[in-house]
């Protein structure tokens, strides 16, 4: 039980290592933890010892008035200096392993753009764009470019190593090599406004063949609406200004202010992790976005129940 | 005390100058900087400002020797030079505003007006102080001698000039060196 609990806790933490980058950082982290514990114990034990040994006694004599000792001072400077020098070089080594310079001619494998409050993921080699749930292949050293559309955001998935700011006006990058397939959680780590809390990240790491398959399915155009309700929904989507912010591949919707909704219903979660994708949740979201995610940049529309049902049906048909 | 004030002011200008340099690394900024600024006219006015440091130095020296009449003369001379400099700066501002370069037009406008504007503000403050001191001189406050007021004000006034040396170099000269 306890062990299982611990394992759960590990999942979203920096101790769940799923990439050599995170592994190297973990190593220097653990090394420092040991050294720091030693240093802390030195101070703590000295403090406790001195307090017990030299407690004032009634009528005790005036203690010797020593006021300095050269040798001791040299040790106070020398020992910490050695310790930090050691870690400085370890840090150098780790940094060049985790974040080597970016070759000029290599296009990134994926470009992730932070928006208030969602993630856009573009795969330049395959010309596809998705949002919020980010699929990556296992076993390849990926170059991930990081951009921001409005304010500063920050990409952080503990299991995959370093975090990196996304700064408007510049492009940053990370190297990520994922070792095991699975779902990795993270979150935006630079305060970016009201809904900073709900900019959670889900990375879905897949075996290369699954990943290729996923790419193909994403590049495909969503099925045309099958029944009258979804058709109505599709029509509404194009006319009720949804299409000015959202895009759906193969339709006239090409907006870029909101997340790309192609194959939206194929995702597990919506709104960067607030809730699962389900008819009810979509309905509630469209009913009043500001109630579900206050501060999100999607206005409230005045729809009747029928229209909402139609839109919901359409969106959940986008598999 | 004045030295401490001047020191902290220097750090303030350092930040503004650094911001200017930071933005000037972009080519668009450079182009605007080269095409809109007129180094010759401003250079002339700058020489006047620099010479006001000289005139102030004369005022200070005369004050120390107790030659109050000469002190008054050099103080007035300094004030006039300061005013001429401000007039020059005002004319340059007008010209730029006519060309639609302003605080909100581009990063060049933003950093140019902020940097030179804060310097101009310091010149204005300096002139106010100088005017007060001159009035005191005419009222006979320095007749007795032994006052350190003039040299204290001097620290400030020379500082304002020295800042302009840096500003002038960064804003007007550097683009011609590139």
């Amino acid at each position: 039980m306890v062990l299982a609990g611990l394992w759960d806790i590990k999942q979203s933490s920096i101790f769940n290592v799923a990439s050599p980058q995170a592994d190297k950082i973990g190593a220097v982290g653990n090394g420092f933890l040991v050294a720091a514990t030693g240093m802390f114990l030195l101070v703590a034990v000295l403090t406790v010892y001195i307090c017990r040994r030299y407690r004032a006694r009634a009528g005790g004599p005036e203690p010797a008035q020593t006021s300095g000792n050269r040798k001791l001072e040299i040790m106070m400077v020398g020992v910490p200096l050695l310790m930090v020098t050691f870690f400085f070089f370890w840090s150098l080594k780790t940094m060049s392993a985790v974040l080597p310079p970016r070759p000029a001619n290599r296009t990134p494998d994926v470009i992730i753009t932070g928006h208030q409050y969602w993630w856009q993921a573009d795969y330049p080699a395959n010309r596809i764009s998705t949002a919020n749930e980010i699929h990556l292949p296992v076993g390849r050293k990926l170059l991930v470019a990081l951009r921001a559309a409005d304010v500063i955001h920050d990409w952080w998935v503990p299991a995959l190593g370093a975090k990196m700011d996304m700064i408007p006006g510049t492009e940053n990058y990370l190297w990520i090599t994922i070792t095991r397939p699975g779902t990795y959680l993270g979150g935006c780590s630079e305060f970016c406004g009201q809904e900073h809390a709900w900019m959670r990240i889900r990375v879905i790491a897949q075996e290369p063949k699954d990943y290729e398959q996923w790419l193909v399915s994403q590049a495909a155009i969503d099925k045309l609406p099958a029944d009258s309700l979804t058709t109505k929904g599709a029509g509404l989507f194009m006319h009720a200004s949804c299409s000015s912010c959202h895009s759906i591949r193969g339709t006239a919707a090409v907006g870029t202010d909101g997340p790309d909704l192609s194959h939206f219903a194929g995702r597990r979660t919506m709104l960067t992790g607030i809730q699962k994708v389900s008819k009810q949740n979509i309905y509630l979201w469209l009913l009043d976005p500001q109630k579900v995610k206050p501060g999100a940049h999607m206005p409230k529309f005045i729809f009747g129940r029928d229209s909402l049902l139609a839109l919901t049906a359409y969106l959940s048909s986008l598999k | 005390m004045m030295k401490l004030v001047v020191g902290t002011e220097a750090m303030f200008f350092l930040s503004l100058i650094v911001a200017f340099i930071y933005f000037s690394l972009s080519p668009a900024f450079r182009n605007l900087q080269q095409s809109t600024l007129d180094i010759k006219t401003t250079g002339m006015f700058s020489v006047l400002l620099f010479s006001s440091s000289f005139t102030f130095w004369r005022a200070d020296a005369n004050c120390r020797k107790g030659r109050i009449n000469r002190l008054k003369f050099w103080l007035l001379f300094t004030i006039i030079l300061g005013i001429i400099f401000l007039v020059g700066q005002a004319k340059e501002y007008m010209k730029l505003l006519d060309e639609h370069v302003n605080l909100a037009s581009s990063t060049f406008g933003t950093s140019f007006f902020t940097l030179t504007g804060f310097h101009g503000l310091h010149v204005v403050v300096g002139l106010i102080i100088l005017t007060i001191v001159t009035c005191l001189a005419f009222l006979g406050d320095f007749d007795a001698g032994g006052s350190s007021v003039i040299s204290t004000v001097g620290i400030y006034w020379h500082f304002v000039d020295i800042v302009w040396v840096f500003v002038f170099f960064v804003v007007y000269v550097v683009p011609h060196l590139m």
Partner: protein
Amino acid sequence: MSRLEHIRIPEPEKPLPGLTISSDQGLIQWLSSVDHKQIGIMYLWLSVLFILVGGIEILLVRIQLAVPNNHFLNPEVFNQLFTMHGTTMIFFVLAPAIFGFATYFVPLMIGANDMAFPRMNAFSFWCTLFGGLLLYFSYLAGGAPDAGWFNYAPLNQFSYSSSPGIDYYCSGLLLAGIGTVSASVNFIVTIFRLRVDGMGLKQMPVFVWMILINSFLILAAFPSLNAALVMLLLDRELHAHFFNPGNGGSALLWQHLFWLFGHPEVYILILPVFGIFSEVFPVFSRKPIFGYGFVVASGVAIALLAFGVWVHHMFATGLGNTVNNFFAASSLLIGVPTGVKIFNWLATMYGGSIRFSVAMLFAIAFLVEFTIGGLTGISFAIVPIDWQLTDTYYVVAHLHYVFIGGSLFGLISGIFYWYPKISGRMLSEKMGRWFFWLFVIGFNLTFLVQHALGAMGMPRRVYTYPDLPGWGILNMISSLGGGLMGIAVCLLVYMLFTSRKTGQIAGSDPWDANTLEWTTTSPPPLKNFNLVIPVRSTRPFRDWKRPDDTDWAREGVNNE
């Protein structure tokens, strides 16, 4: 050696500014006072007021965070609360408390009767107060600032934060900044000009040294904040383009300017406190400070290094490994002089005769807690670790371990040590112990677990969080700890209030202390001194009390 004569402080030719006010004028007397002691007391009460405000703000936050997916506060309010909490605690709690002790005790410790510029001293205080009021006026004007205490661009731009909060943030901090800078000028001149005859730089108490160093640090660091604030105001009010990338501005410029101020600022908030400890440890161990020269020199080293480390707040902004390495090295180095201080205080206690007064208890607790905070600081200076842990609750833990376990413990220690001098009455040692244990236990409950939360992936400044394994329980512990600290702080404030009238009478020298402030009455008269005892070492009062065992005689022998 024969006992030296008192140094007579000449009667001033003009009346001291403080003396022109008679004491029967009540509130008016306080409002118009230019006496350093009254101004010091007002600074201290200002800080007490704001710790209550800042504390209530964060308690609301902790209630919101106690359980996952909570709806107690909406995100808008939450963001204003933590922003105001951080800004208040830094600029209107720690800073005024430090200035309060400094304006009160620097003149007393150097044997002077007032600050060099008493009117400017009052000006500094009122600037600080009105700066704080201006900041809080934002709540009435349509919303408090909501972009965090370091207020990153471009989130601080009008297009992303259109309430006037950030404009009040700028003007409030500018005003308070002017007060701070003028106070520093005042301290430097006071310390250089008004020391009593015989007190050379080497005889200055460490506290005075630290205030001196600190004042220079302020003069050098605050201008870059002021410049940044002015630029931001221009951006917001006049549509300038310093910080909005959409129009060619730069988001990183703000970070550089802010942290060029911000890092020195955190040392500004700890160095004077190191000074307080350097008074408390010797007094309650009955020994001179160990390695006086090293303690002072390490203060200077910290101040100098402080300007070379600001990028360590920006390791994750992609400035490149070369830049990062340089700043990593300087940040690691800064641990060394700090360590020197810690070990010197331990050595001061070693072989002493330790009295566990509440002031000393806080000093001892500080040694342990601050070491934790310092070591987590060093862990950030190792860049790869920072890449994992920056902007998580691990940072929140670090900053509270240094701010509370460091600065605040020091200030509280100072309160217990100096309250008798300021008020003439003792704070109850018994209730003080209750307060000590409540506060220290609450503090560790609140923040120790946050190290783990950070490592478990919880970013900071989130108004709520998903129910991931372990997050809920640790946050609950943290909130409970916060409540405990709240109770403790209330107890402290209660003690401060009531002991003024009911505390045990202190007498002029209740702790058998070493420095000049204890030679005058408690509270000191308006004119601090008529006679000052001769100063020939850092412990003039002890020399005076024990003429057969003086520091200067002993050191003289050592030097031969």
